[in-house]
C-alpha cells in the first residue's frame, strides 16, 4: 500500500491560502482569548478541589444547588467521568468570614452532643482553625477524639500531658464534604481526589510552566541554528509559536462547551503543550532535513522548487507518523480516563495543527525570509 506515490504539489504556490487559514485560526483564538479568557485549574490560580464518587448516579443540577446552599458563594460544580462523579472547585483556600459562625455552630453542636454543658472557652479563631480551651486534659482529650471520630479535624494544641486546648482546623474541602454528607443522605460518596494549592505555589507553578516553555523554545532555536541555518531555526520556532498559540486559542474557544471534556489549563496540559512542541519540531526538522539534502544535491535549483519537492517527498512519512500518533492519542482520549482527557485533547488538535504547520507554515516562512532578505540558503 502506498500513499502519495510520485507526489508533487506546489505547496509554496498555495501559501496565500495557508496564510489565510492560519490567520483566521489565529484571529478566532485571539478573539476567544480576549472575550472568554482561559479556564485555569487550581494548579495555577490556587484553590481547593475535591472529586467525589457517588454510589448511585446523581443529578448534577441538584448537587450544584446543594453546594450553593452551603453558602460559600460561587463554586464550580461539574461532572467527573461518568454519571456518578462530581468535581467541586473553588478558588477559596479557607472558609470565608461570613460562614465562620456557622462552622463554629457546627462544632459547638457536636461538643454539646458529646458532653452536654461542658465548660469551654473559644480562645482563638483564625482563618483556618478554631481553638477551644477546656477545664482539664481528660475532657479535652475525650472531646478531641469524639470530634475526630465524627469527621472534624480536631487535634491537641500541644502534646504536653497537661494540654487542655483543642484545635479544630476547618478546611474548605472538609466543610463542603460535611455539608454534602448531611444534605445528600440517600446517596453516599467516597472521595476520589482532593487537592489544595496555595496561591504562592500556584504563582510559582505558573512561572515554572512559562519558563519551561520559554527554555524549550530557546533550546530548539539554538540546536537548529547549529545543525541548519538560522533561517531554518527561525522558521521552525515561528511555526511552533503558531501551533502553541492556535491550540491555546482552541482551549479558550471550547472550554465549557463540550460536555465531559474538561479544558482547564493545569500542569498536565502544560506538559501536553511541551510534548506538542517536541512533536511539531520533530515533524518540521524532517522536512528541513530533506530541504538541506536536496539543496546539497541540486545546488542551482531555486529554493522555491527545492522546498516544494522536499515537502512532497516527505509527505507520506509526515502523514503516516502523524496518523499513528493521532491514533494512539485518540485511544488515550477515549479510553484513558478523565484525568488524561485534556492532555490527550491538547495533543490531538496540537498534532493536527503541528502537522499542518510543518507542511504549510515552517518552510513557507523560511522561503519568505530568504527572499525578503535576499539570502542565499546553501549548505
Amino acid at each position: 500500500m502506498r500513499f502519495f506515490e510520485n507526489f508533487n504539489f506546489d505547496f509554496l504556490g498555495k501559501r496565500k491560502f495557508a496564510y489565510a487559514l492560519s490567520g483566521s485560526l489565529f484571529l478566532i483564538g485571539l478573539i476567544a482569548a480576549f472575550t472568554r479568557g482561559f479556564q485555569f485549574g487550581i494548579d495555577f490560580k490556587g484553590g481547593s478541589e475535591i472529586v467525589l464518587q457517588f454510589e448511585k448516579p446523581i443529578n448534577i443540577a441538584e448537587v450544584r444547588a446543594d453546594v450553593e446552599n452551603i453558602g460559600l458563594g460561587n463554586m464550580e460544580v461539574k461532572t467527573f467521568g461518568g454519571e456518578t462523579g462530581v468535581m467541586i472547585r473553588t478558588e477559596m483556600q479557607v472558609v470565608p468570614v461570613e460562614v465562620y459562625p456557622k462552622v463554629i455552630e457546627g462544632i459547638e453542636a457536636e461538643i454539646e452532643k458529646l458532653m452536654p454543658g461542658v465548660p469551654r472557652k473559644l480562645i482563638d479563631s483564625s482563618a483556618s482553625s478554631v481553638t477551644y480551651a477546656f477545664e482539664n486534659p481528660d475532657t479535652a482529650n475525650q472531646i478531641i477524639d469524639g470530634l475526630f471520630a465524627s469527621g472534624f479535624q480536631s487535634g491537641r494544641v500541644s502534646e504536653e500531658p497537661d494540654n487542655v486546648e483543642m484545635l479544630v482546623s476547618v478546611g474548605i474541602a472538609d466543610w463542603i464534604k460535611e455539608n454534602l454528607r448531611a444534605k445528600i443522605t440517600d446517596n453516599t460518596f467516597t472521595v476520589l481526589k482532593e487537592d489544595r494549592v496555595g496561591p504562592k505555589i500556584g504563582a510559582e507553578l505558573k512561572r515554572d510552566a512559562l519558563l519551561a516553555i520559554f527554555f524549550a523554545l530557546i533550546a530548539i532555536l539554538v540546536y537548529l541554528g547549529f545543525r541548519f541555518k538560522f533561517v531554518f531555526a527561525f522558521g521552525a520556532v515561528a511555526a511552533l509559536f503558531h501551533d502553541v498559540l492556535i491550540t491555546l486559542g482552541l482551549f479558550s474557544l471550547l472550554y465549557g462547551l463540550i460536555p465531559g471534556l474538561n479544558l482547564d489549563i493545569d500542569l498536565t496540559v502544560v506538559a501536553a503543550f511541551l510534548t506538542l512542541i517536541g512533536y511539531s519540531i520533530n515533524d518540521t526538522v524532517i522536512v528541513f532535513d530533506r530541504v538541506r539534502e536536496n539543496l546539497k544535491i541540486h545546488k542551482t535549483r531555486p529554493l522555491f522548487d527545492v522546498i516544494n519537492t522536499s515537502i512532497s517527498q516527505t509527505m507520506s512519512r509526515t502523514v503516516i507518523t502523524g496518523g499513528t500518533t493521532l491514533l494512539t492519542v485518540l485511544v488515550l482520549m477515549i479510553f484513558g480516563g478523565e484525568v488524561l482527557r485534556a492532555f490527550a485533547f491538547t495533543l490531538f488538535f496540537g498534532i493536527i495543527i503541528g502537522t499542518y504547520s510543518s507542511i504549510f507554515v515552517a518552510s513557507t516562512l523560511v522561503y519568505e525570509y530568504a527572499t525578503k532578505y535576499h539570502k542565499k540558503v546553501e549548505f
Partner: protein
Amino acid sequence: MKEFRFRLIIIVAAIALSIYLLYPTYLDYQNSSDIKQTLELKRLQLVKENPDFTKSQIDKLLRANEDSILAANPDIVKNKEKRVKLGLDLQGGMRVVLEVNTGKLLEKLAKNPDETFRAVLAEAQQESERTDESVVDILARKFTERGIRLSRYFGTIRDEDSQILSSLTDNAEDAVNRAVEIIRNRVDQYGVSEPSIQRQGSRRIIVELPGIAREEEAKKLLQGTALLEFRIVREADFTFPVMQKIDDVLAGKVLDDTTQVASEDKATETTPTDTSIAAADTTTPEGELSEEEFRKQHPFFSIALLDPQGRSADAYVKVEDKNKLELMLNRPDVQKVIPNNVEFKFQARSQTDAEGNEFFVMYLVNKDPELTGGVITDATANIDPNTSAPIVTMTMNSEGATEWARITGANVNKRIAIMLDGGIFSAPVVKGKIPGGRSQIEGMADLNEAKLLEIVLKAGALPAPVDIIEERSVGPSLGEDSINKGLLSVILGYALVGIFMIIYYRRAGTIAAAALTFTILFILGVLAGFNATLTLPGIAGIILTIGMAVDANVLIFERIREEMATGKTIKASVDSGFSRAYSAIIDSNITTFFTGIILYQFGTGPIQGFALTLMIGIAASLFSALVVTRLILDLMVSKNIPVTIG
C-alpha cells in the same frame, strides 16, 4: 553470519537485561496479590471471630500477619525494592508540601515583641508571599529602613546587626531540619510503608505518603508540636521479672492470681494468641524442633532477644517482629502483669548489626516523664576537643535546671531516655548530679547521630510551626481505575499501530511491529533499572511513544522505497535507506529529547514521570529502529528472504 554476531549479542543482551530487570516487578505483582488474598481471608476470619474489635485493632493484627509473611520470605521484600514503583496518582496516597512558618518562629525567638515588631513582622511575612527573599532578610531590611537595631528584639544589646542576622538565619535553617526530623519520626511511628520526606528549597518539605487511607489523621501527623520527654529507664532487676511474667502469660502458664484474672478474659482473648502463634509458625524456617519448642514455650523471649552477657534488660527486636510484639504487649492479660507506672517503648530508629539484621531496642521506661522539653533552651552537637568523640551539649532554663539537678542527683548511674513523640532517641547513663542545667551527652557513634540528637532536643524547646501549602490526595479507587484505563490504552494503541504498520508496510511493517514490542520492553526495563516511578502521565508517555516510535521506522522504510524506485538492489536500498534517514532521525529526536529534559527540570511529581518515560521512549525507539530493525532487515537480505515494503 559473522558480521551480524556482534549486533545480535547486543540485542539479545538488551532483551535479557530488560526481562531480568522486570522480573522482580512481575514477581512482586504476584506476591502482593497473593498476600492481599491471604490477608483478606484473614480479615474475614478475624472479623467473624472478634465482632467487638475495632477496625484499627484488626488492621494492626493484619499488619502483624503481613510482617511475618514478609519476614519469612526475604525475597518478597527484595523484589519489592527492585520493582517499578507506582506513583501516588496510581496507587493512591497523599502528597503534602509544607512550609516552615518562619514568621511564627521569629515571634517566638524575639525577646520582647511589641506592637511595632508585630506590625513589621506581618509586613515582612506578607512580602515573603510574593518574593523568594527569606522572611528573616526582609525583616532585617525593614528594621534597618526604620532605623531600629535588631538587638532591640534579638540577641544582646552589644550584638551587631549582621551577627544577629546570621544567627537568625541559622535558626530558620535549623527549624526546617527539625521539622523534617519530627515528621520523619512521626511517619515512622505511624507505620506508613515507603514514605518519602524531602527538603525542597530553603524552607519547604515535601512529604509523600502512599496508600494513606485516613488523610485527616495523616495531616494531623504532619502538623502540631512535638513532645520531648525525659523518662527513667528501669533497670534489669526490675525489668527482667516483668519480662519473665509476660513470657509466662504468653506461653499460657498460669502463675499467680494476676494471671488468674486474666484467664477470665480468655474467651475473647484467645484469638490474638492464635494469630500470633500462627504468625510465628509461618516465620519458622525448616529448623530443628528445639527452636520451635523454644518459640512455643517462650513466645516473648523468642522475639524480644536479650543480650546474654549484658547487664541491662534491653530487648532487641527485629524490625519485622515489632508489630507482633506490640500486639502481644497490648493484650489485656499481658497488660495486667506489667506494673501500672511503666511501659515498654521502642527506639525511634532501627539499628543494623554487623550481620545486616535490622532491629529496634525496646526499653522499659516510666510512664510519667521526669521532665518535658519546654525547659530546654538550646542544644548543640559538637566534637569534644579532648577525646574527639561526638557530644551534644544541652542547656535548660533556670526552672528546668533545678528540676534536672534533682532528677540527675536521684538517678546517678541510671539511664534517662530521651523520647520524641513516643520514640526513644537516646538513653544515656547519668554520671552524676548536674547542677547548672548544662549537660553533656556522650556515646554517639558519629557526628550525624549527635546532630540528630541535637535536633530532637531542640524540637521540644522550639517548635517548628509548619503550614500546609499544597496537598494532593488520590483515593485508591481512582488510582486503580487509572491503572486499568492506562493499560487498556497501551494495549489498544499498540494493537492499532502494529496492525497499521503490518498492513501498510507488509513484511517490513511486521518487523517494525516486532521492534515496537521491544521498544515497550526496553522502556519498562529501563524504568525498573532506574528504580523510577511510573505515574499516570508516565503511562500517557508510553502510549504517546508507541505512536511516535514508529516514526524512525517509517522514515527508513520510505527512504528504502525511494531508493528501490531508483532501481537499486534490495541490499543497496536498505543500506542507503538507513544512512540517508539517519540525520533526519537524529536531529528530530534530539530536539524532542530537549523538551523532555526541560519538562523534567521544571515539572513536579507526575509530570516528571511523563518526561522520564518520554525520554526513555525516544532512546528505546531509536535503538529498536536503528539496531533491531536494521539487523532483521540485513539478515533477511543476506538469507535472500524477500523484503516487501508495501
